[in-house]
């Protein structure tokens, strides 16, 4: 069970704090009673205005295609359908989204000329219910011209790759190099150079509540939006610009509760714009709730990253220089705030280490995949997967104890605040102490003894480490590091991270705190109540906190929102400062009433009194009431109100300098992880045997909630390490569209980590607190990977470490088995395009077969489920085909083409089809050889299936494709022989009868 230990409770960094009766206590949450009773108010729980309509989105089944024509007439005529929004409306009423780099790329809320990823919105239907809206989607015909897709990250950047955006001319939308210190000399003179290439996969934290919004068009007043989008509210500007309205005409509000975000709900941005337009078209409020299939397919993803990293290392393990060559894959469009995944971490690319020389080459590429965005850890998992794997490799290659490599390279305690090579100003820490705590109490020694014992028995046991900086409170200017210094100078500096809070007291002495933090379960209300109660000498239950966000009524700025672990440091800090400001005002009034010096006024136990003359005391509520009922009693130079708003921005967050140095975050926590894993030699299953995570997040405001954050991040990271990945086929087909395909960890997959704390308060935040919600998302994937690398003594480790993948690393010693039979065979790769080959003997001759090919009526009999077949050219037909596999049934519009006809020897049969289930395309060569009055038919086929059926049925595509092909060619044989099919029996019954 948990081993929580707080090692030191340091004195507060500023003198503004009084009695910390509540801050630092594991207070139970004020949020919980409502949530546990079903009284939560999530977006889909709120009532809507009468007449509100419901939207559904038609999405692209293609990864890449030209959008030729959209025919929505049938859909428009369906009873209950009220509006259909197409690209024409979108072009008329909106503008493309602003892009973070200078590029002619256009990104709209609906596909315009091309679709560029599976799931890209193509049409919106607005109807009286979601059910009807989905009915209408099935009635829309879209004509596409398929294009080759680019899915592979390195390939995407090559000069001859298929280009997504013709106007850009390349898939590389950003290419920047950075140099700090003198990396060339350091590498030239290095005793050792250790290099490693790694890949980080696409994944996401998939909150259990999906995105949702209720939107109304108000004419001259613009748009009113209620959604669980959680910021950053710098993106409010992006939405307003896309809608071509001033920011004041786009009111955005959040519901009181949000069912998890983890950054992911930032992906609601384009949908807010889309639904604004839909509401405008419909002339009524519109509600859209993203469903799970839509969320997994098309919401967002962490970037995939391909990194080559190299270190110049002295014989003792001291690193003198680092070189990163990174490619970030951002999907089909660079959607704001990308390419922020790169630049959030930029100032701290040297990690927790004192490394004076650094070279960085960053390229951002586009692929035919869902656009990327915020996912908890944002940028951290990608960087640390390279950097911390490299530390492990340095230890291996130099035959050093990893612990010694850490100790030799960590920034020293006496160096803080420490200016890192790329510009991060590390605020505080004691990394050596944290390591000692984590490894201490014989924890590491016990793991190593376990490893020795396991290895002596031939078992596969590995130990991994990870040391990471956990940045919090992002510098709003960091993203401008992507621009050249000249371009930045032209655009004007961007910097800071403004947070705000308002504290007010009502006539009965009740205290209200309002912050624009839009949380998703982190317990902001509870923590703010603790923070503010301490300032006023009240109980937390006396503090009413409102964390909803309203752009029209709240004090807010661009940095507002629920991201970059900014709550504890920035938001709670601002609330503290606002409370202090209000308290001081009360203190001045009390001092005047009591006739004492203001500095002697104290606030404790609901009373305000003078420490010098304790008989001078007044209940808190009484004094507060005075401000409301008797402004005459308020000191002459004070304003009468009891409401204070504070805006706070850490002064350390400067704009990137002319040398590209940037302090990317205001505070940097530290995490040191140790884990032991055992790999089952038989199955390749990775079992986490022990996990120790040591955190220094400065002052802890509520240790129970802090540990809750750590456990949650850890669980997501275990998923990222072992299970989770958005899988795509070579053709860009998306294959992870359900929670049975995208595998989030369950209660049986997540072990309990040992959580340890050290508290070195940040000198830069009002309460000394730093963020801590994202650390394990950054540290744990690579820590587990390091342990697996150690267990198997391998260099290449890719996530997720699924049993199938790990088993391939362990090695399957294939037995001398019987040769593969003549059954259809498939390539032994996971998640790739489908192919099948097979041979069947038919009683028809090759000539008979060619007779069938020349006769459309016979050809129609051959194609399973063919309803009608009409020629549209020579050897080119169109047909309606119903594919049926068990209870799954889909009606495809199919084009069939015969080519390379070489009678009576061979031909190529190609087909492509589209249905509400998605698109399929296949082509194969059929060869015929005469055989005793009949023929042997051989087919060799490849097929692609994309869209809904691939996203949700990937597990069965292989066998389904084999089945359909086998059926097709058996049928060809029958028809060629002259077997007629009894009209009363559908083909599948006939077939099943035969198989029996």
């Amino acid at each position, binding site marked *: 069970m*948990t081993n929580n230990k707080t090692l030191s409770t340091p004195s507060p960094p500023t003198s503004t704090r009084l009695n910390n009766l509540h801050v630092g206590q*594991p207070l*139970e*949450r004020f*949020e*919980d*009673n409502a*949530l*546990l*009773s*079903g*009284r*939560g108010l*999530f977006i*889909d*729980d709120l009532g809507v205005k009468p007449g509100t309509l419901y939207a559904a989105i038609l999405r692209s089944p293609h990864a890449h295609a030209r959008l030729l024509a959209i025919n929505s007439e049938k859909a428009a005529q369906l009873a209950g359908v009220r509006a259909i929004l197409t690209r024409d409306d979108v072009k008329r009423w909106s503008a493309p989204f602003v892009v973070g780099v200078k590029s002619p790329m256009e990104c709209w809320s609906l596909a315009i000329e091309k679709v560029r990823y599976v799931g890209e919105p193509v049409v919106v239907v607005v109807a009286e219910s979601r*059910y009807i809206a989905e009915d209408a989607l099935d009635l829309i015909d879209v004509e596409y011209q398929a294009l080759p897709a680019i899915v592979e990250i390195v390939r995407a950047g090559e000069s001859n790759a298929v280009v997504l955006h013709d106007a850009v001319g390349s898939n590389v939308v950003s290419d920047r190099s950075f140099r700090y210190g003198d990396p060339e000399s350091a590498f030239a003179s290095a005793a050792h150079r250790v290099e490693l290439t790694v890949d980080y996969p696409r994944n996401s*934290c*998939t*909150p*259990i*509540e*999906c995105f949702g919004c209720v939107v109304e068009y108000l004419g001259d007043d613009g748009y009113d939006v209620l959604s669980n989008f959680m910021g950053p509210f710098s993106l409010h500007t992006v939405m307003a610009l896309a809608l071509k309205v001033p920011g004041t005409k786009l009111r955005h509000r959040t519901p009181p*509760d*949000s*069912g*998890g975000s*983890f950054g992911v709900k930032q992906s609601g941005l384009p949908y807010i714009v889309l639904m604004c337009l839909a509401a405008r078209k419909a002339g009524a409020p519109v509600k859209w709730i993203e*469903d*799970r299939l839509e969320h997994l397919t098309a919401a967002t993803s962490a970037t995939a990253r391909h990194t080559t990293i190299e270190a110049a290392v002295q014989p003792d393990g001291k690193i003198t220089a680092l070189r990163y060559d990174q490619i970030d894959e951002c999907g089909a469009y660079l959607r704001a705030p990308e390419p922020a995944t790169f630049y959030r971490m930029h100032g701290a690319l040297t990690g927790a280490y004192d490394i004076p020389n650094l070279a960085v080459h960053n390229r951002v590429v586009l692929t035919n995949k869902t656009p990327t965005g915020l996912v908890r850890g944002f940028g951290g998992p990608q960087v640390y997967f390279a950097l911390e794997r490299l530390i492990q490799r340095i230890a291996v290659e130099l035959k050093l104890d990893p612990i010694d490599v850490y100790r030799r390279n960590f920034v020293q305690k006496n160096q803080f605040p420490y200016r890192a090579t790329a510009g991060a100003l590390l605020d505080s820490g004691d990394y050596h102490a944290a390591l000692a705590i984590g490894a201490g109490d014989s924890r590491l020694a016990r793991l190593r003894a376990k490893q020795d014992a396991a290895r002596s028995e031939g078992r596969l046991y590995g130990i991994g480490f990870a040391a990471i900086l956990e940045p919090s409170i992002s510098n709003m200017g960091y993203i401008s590091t992507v621009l050249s210094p000249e371009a930045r100078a032209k655009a004007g500096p961007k910097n800071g991270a403004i947070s705000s809070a308002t504290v007010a007291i009502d006539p009965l002495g009740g205290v209200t705190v309002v912050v624009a933090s839009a949380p*998703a*379960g*982190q*317990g902001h209300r509870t923590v703010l109540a603790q923070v503010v109660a301490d300032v006023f000498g009240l109980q937390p239950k006396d503090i009413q906190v409102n964390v909803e966000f309203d752009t029209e009524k709240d004090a807010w700025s661009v940095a507002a929102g629920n991201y970059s672990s900014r709550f504890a440091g920035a938001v709670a800090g601002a609330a503290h400062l606002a409370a202090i400001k209000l308290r001081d005002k009360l203190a001045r009034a009390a001092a005047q009433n009591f006739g004492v010096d203001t500095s002697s006024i104290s606030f404790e136990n609901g009373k305000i009194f003078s420490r010098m003359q304790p008989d001078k005391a007044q209940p808190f509520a009484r004094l507060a009431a005075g401000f409301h009922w008797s402004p005459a009693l308020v000191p002459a130079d004070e304003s009468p109100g009891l409401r204070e708003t504070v805006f706070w921005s850490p002064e350390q967050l400067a704009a990137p300098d002319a040398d590209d140095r940037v302090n990317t975050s205001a505070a940097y926590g530290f995490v040191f992880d140790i884990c032991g894993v055992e790999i089952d030699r038989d199955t390749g299953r990775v079992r986490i045997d022990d996990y120790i995570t040591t955190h220094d997040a400065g002052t802890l405001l509520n240790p*129970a*909630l802090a*540990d*809750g954050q750590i*456990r*949650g*991040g*850890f*669980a*997501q990271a275990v998923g990222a390490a072992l299970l989770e990945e958005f899988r795509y086929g070579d053709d860009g087909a998306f294959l992870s569209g*359900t*929670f*049975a395909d995208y595998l*989030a960890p*369950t*209660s*049986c997959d*997540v072990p*309990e980590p040992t959580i340890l704390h050290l508290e070195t308060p940040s000198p830069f935040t009002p309460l000394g607190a730093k963020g801590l919600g994202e650390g394990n998302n950054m540290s744990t994937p690579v820590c587990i990977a390091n342990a697996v690398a150690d267990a198997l003594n391998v260099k290449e480790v890719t996530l997720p470490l699924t049993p199938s993948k790990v088993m391939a690393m362990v090695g399957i010693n294939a037995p001398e088995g019987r040769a593969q039979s003549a059954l259809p065979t498939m390539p032994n790769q996971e998640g790739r395009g489908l192919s099948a080959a097979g041979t069947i003997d038919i009683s028809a001759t090759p000539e008979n077969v060619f007779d069938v090919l020349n006769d459309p009526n016979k050809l129609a009999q051959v194609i399973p489920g063919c309803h009608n077949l009409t020629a549209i050219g020579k050897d080119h037909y169109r047909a309606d085909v119903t594919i049926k596999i068990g209870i799954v049934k889909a009606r495809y519009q199919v084009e069939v083409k015969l080519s390379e006809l070489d009678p009576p020897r061979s031909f190529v049969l190609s087909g492509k089809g589209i249905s509400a289930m998605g698109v399929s395309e296949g082509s194969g060569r059929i060869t015929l050889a005469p055989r005793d009055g009949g023929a042997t038919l051989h087919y060799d086929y490849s097929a692609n299936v994309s869209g809904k059926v691939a996203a949700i049925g990937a597990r069965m595509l292989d066998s389904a494709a084999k089945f359909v092909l086998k059926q097709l060619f058996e049928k060809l044989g029958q028809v060629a022989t002259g077997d007629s099919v009894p009209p009363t029996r559908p083909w599948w019954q006939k077939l099943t009868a035969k198989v029996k």
Partner: protein
Amino acid sequence: MKPIRSNEHATISLRLNGFERTGHAEPRMLLCDFLRHKLGATGTHVGCEHGVCGACTVRVDGVAARSCLMLAVQADGRQIDTVEGLTDSDGLLNDLQQSFKRHHALQCGFCTAGILMSCMDYLQRVPNPSEQQVRDMLSGHLCRCTGYTNIVNAVLDTANRRTSA
């Protein structure tokens, strides 16, 4: 029974948390949508609509089941219990809810209603489960916030207190 045609809005009467409730729905309406949007019982949440995440779990005649995998028309005449019924009329949490609060077993609270309803059924059938049994039972729910341990502890604590009471 008489068929209910696809366009017909059938009258559905059920006992929701002890109260007789009536609403109307087409045959295809999912029970979760009916409970939430027709009867206003929004405490039950919808997370995947394909039976994996467990957020929509309710009790049907006492038995924990996915309300996204059941039609509203199937609930006619049945007893349905949802999270709203766990708290008494004074707003007092029951022992399981209290335990969740004590153990910080929820963060965003979106998946919680379904988990509570599963546990209410399960603990009646298995009053004294092992940690592994609880983890197995909870594997029918996805929670992205908590990492599960606090949920496991809350359930075990509830079971212990009930059996030692």
